[in-house]
């Protein structure tokens, strides 16, 4: 998994590439914990992500909880399989998927 970021004023676009699973989630969680200060708008771009396990769901939920306190968050370019996981777990109710 690799994490790329692009800043646009107070907006942060985070593009993840690869799998967000048990092995890689801690790195993404750590990234969110240390890079969201002062961010008003977060876009999590999943275009290059082909797999999200429950560990990945938990990490995305943590980012959503953080952004709920300080601004807003959208999740973009979700593939069919990951969308199915979001739907099964009702993450579609709590995430803003564009």
């Amino acid at each position, binding site marked *: 998994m690799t994490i790329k970021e692009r800043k646009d004023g107070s907006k942060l676009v985070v593009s993840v590439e690869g799998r967000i699973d048990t092995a890689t989630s801690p790195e993404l969680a750590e990234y969110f914990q240390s890079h969201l200060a002062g961010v008003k708008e977060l876009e999590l771009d999943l275009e290059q992500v082909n797999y999200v396990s429950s560990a990945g*769901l938990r990490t995305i939920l943590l980012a959503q909880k953080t952004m709920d306190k300080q601004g807003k968050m959208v999740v973009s370019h979700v593939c069919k*399989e990951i969308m199915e996981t979001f739907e099964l*777990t009702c993450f579609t109710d709590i995430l803003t998927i564009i």
Partner: protein
Amino acid sequence: MINYKVNAKVDLIDEMINPIISSLEENKADHKTLYQMNLVLEELLVNVANYAYAPNEGDVEICYEIKNKELEVVIIDKGKPFNPLEHSDPDLKAPVEDRKIGGLGIYLVKNLVDDIQYQRVENKNILKINKKF
């Protein structure tokens, strides 16, 4: 049934899962089945690796068979008794601030397989899943 043992460690999850995924591919399972079984097996085996023997170590035995477009996998460990089916489902309708971080993996597993059964026999956790494709 094909049968193998792997040290139950999180960094060996691929070694546990890959033989089954390869066999599914050989049996022309569709992309959706491959994705779902990758997810199901990761969730179950990560649980074994993280909790069954902690803080010690042990092996997980994996048996599987594909017959008539149906996969059966049996996951056996000699760790602490753990019946994943006893745990209640997470509250998926809770507002985001109340969403708990646990229980999602097992919830996904239960919803992505056709059948799941747990037995505790002779100090072993025996979990059997079936998936048609």
